[in-house]
């Protein structure tokens, strides 16, 4: 009987815990809205309608969720092996740079070849960017948290140089943005603002899930994350697995950058990502690092952002409120995770 209770608990909790975290975050942020003199219930109503209330809103939410799915997967893959990649933001931009280098007309290929090529280029750029901190970690034990964080700033300055210099679009009336991608290098639209990137993100999540649950590599990553010394004792080639994890994690974020440029924006600029890389950490944690969970939590987080945009337009509230709600939900989720663990131990 006891066993039965535990099974049921562990099945429901991973779904309930993040929901509870988001709801708690929304409640905790009520005083902030009240403080600005706006009715909170009305604003949350506007938010819900703005995020999910119409087919346009829904397509907006899904298109906003697409990059978050990629960065969330990137973080989930890395954190599962306890490789602390906080640089998904930089890798995202690295992928976008790759897409711009390949897809703006230096190369003319039919779309069937062009699309895989820019995705591959983005994957490689993002992966190589993360390979550097990973190499420093496995070779000379340099902490990857700081190196990945600092590289974000380096990459962003690189983008700033590229869009003001060599890749600048001369017809953009002086705006610092890169030349637009050619039609061959543009991802097909699905519904409204959603594009093929959404399908690619779902596909990537399924592949990562299969790798995690069926492949030796996925098992090794988990083993390293659970107990690195035991993993080494069991003969797992730690360094090689960490390097591969880095390549995969950076690559996923890079593909996110490609899809954003090629599916939505059309060109590379400095405001391509409003912190998708950092939000990816929250997406991954809400999903408890499960790749399929990442898809759902990305949609949830995107809904908060899109809804908050609608709210800030109607009630003149700063859109930073969405970031506050989302980061509060990360902290609530941490509590949820701890409580879940306790509950499991008690039974």
């Amino acid at each position, binding site marked *: 009987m006891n066993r039965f209770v535990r099974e049921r608990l562990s099945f429901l909790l991973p779904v309930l815990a993040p929901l509870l975290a988001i709801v708690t975050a929304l409640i905790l942020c009520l005083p*902030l809205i009240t*403080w*600005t003199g706006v009715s909170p219930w009305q604003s949350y109503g506007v938010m819900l309608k703005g995020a999910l209330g119409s087919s346009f809103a829904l397509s907006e939410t899904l298109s906003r969720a697409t990059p978050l799915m990629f960065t969330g997967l990137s973080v989930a893959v890395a954190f599962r092996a306890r490789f*602390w990649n*906080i640089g998904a933001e930089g890798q995202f931009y690295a992928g976008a740079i790759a897409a711009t280098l390949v897809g703006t007309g230096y190369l003319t290929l039919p779309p069937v070849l062009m699309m895989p090529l820019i995705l591959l280029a983005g994957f490689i750029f993002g992966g190589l960017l993360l390979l550097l901190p990973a190499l*420093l970690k496995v070779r*000379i*034990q*340099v*902490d990857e*948290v*700081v*190196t990945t*964080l*600092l*590289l*974000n*700033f*380096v990459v962003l*300055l*690189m983008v*700033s*140089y590229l869009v*003001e*210099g060599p890749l600048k679009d001369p017809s953009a009336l002086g705006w610092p943005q890169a030349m637009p991608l050619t039609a061959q290098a543009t991802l097909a639209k699905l519904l409204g603002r959603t594009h093929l990137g959404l399908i690619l993100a779902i596909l990537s999540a399924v592949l990562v899930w299969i790798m995690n649950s069926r492949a030796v590599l996925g098992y090794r990553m988990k083993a390293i994350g659970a107990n690195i010394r035991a993993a080494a004792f069991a003969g797992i080639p730690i360094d090689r697995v960490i390097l591969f994890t880095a390549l995969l994690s950076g690559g996923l974020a890079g593909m996110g950058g490609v899809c954003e440029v090629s599916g939505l924006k059309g060109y590379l600029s400095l405001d391509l990502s409003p912190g998708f890389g*950092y939000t990816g*950490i*929250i997406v991954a*944690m809400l999903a408890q690092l499960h790749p399929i969970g990442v898809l759902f939590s990305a949609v949830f987080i995107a809904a908060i952002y899109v809804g908050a945009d609608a709210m800030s337009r109607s009630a*003149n*509230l*700063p859109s*930073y*409120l969405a*970031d*506050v709600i*989302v*980061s*509060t939900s*990360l*902290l609530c989720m*941490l*509590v949820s*995770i*701890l409580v879940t663990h306790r509950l499991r131990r008690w039974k």
Partner: protein
Amino acid sequence: MEILTLLLGVEFWSATLRIASPLILGTLGELLCERAGVLNLGIEGIMTIGALVGWAAVYQGANLWMGVLLAAVVGMVFGWLHSLFTVYLGASQHVTGIGITLLAANLAYFFYRVLLPNVTTPPKIIPFQPLPIPLVSQIPLVGQAVFSQTPLTYLGLLAVAVVAYVLYRTPLGLAVRMVGENPAAAEAQGIDVFAVRTGAVVAGSGLMAIGGAFLTLSAFDSFFVNLINGRGWICIALVIFASWQPLKALLGALLFAGFDALQIRLQQEIGAWIPYQVFLMLPYILSILALTVMSRQAGYPKALMVPFRKGER
């Protein structure tokens, strides 16, 4: 030859110390947390909200020192939140820190926008003015550079001495170092590991927030989005570079700031030939290089990032 005249100039050394001040405070704060065994990745956000609170208080008519105090208090509140998760609940220090950074920074930006809804050019305040210390500020070069700074820089230098003294010469400092090296042994000695760790994180976060407030109350006179711009992360690199020792942290921050001051001068001299982004990248690349060089000697506190649970081994 030009470099030599530059290095002998008072302005260069004065600028170095000015650039180093927020880094000194931030690095000291982080060092205190890490010495107690807690990695505080909330530093970037805590510096941001410190910068905002200090500036906003003065903008609303408070005294400059009141602004510094309020910034420190708000920083300490976020430090306390951090320790609640990492010390008492034993949550992941990486994820908690990132969460605190995102929350604190975005709250700062939110409050800034609520305070000033439709402003494009940030309003200014009257910041701290240089306060030359009589007599010693007349000493050529050293005195002129070190003793003609704003009060917050003196506070930073004083903090180095205080933190170094407390860490190495007092029972409290011993307790802090113990809970960072071997919390079980500290507990066996009757030290409350949770309380010491919480205290270190709270105090360290206060220092970080003052470091952030230095930027709005002393270096510049206004707040803007992305003001901190990675300085917090650089502080974390500096802590490792300094092998967790306050005096080395001062040295590291000065060295780093010296390069930064040099870089700014270089940009003025040869900026026409090299894109300015290259110069702006230098601090970050320099930090990564410093980490790479020092990583072999890094003497991590043994219990860094290891949550302590009573009765567990």
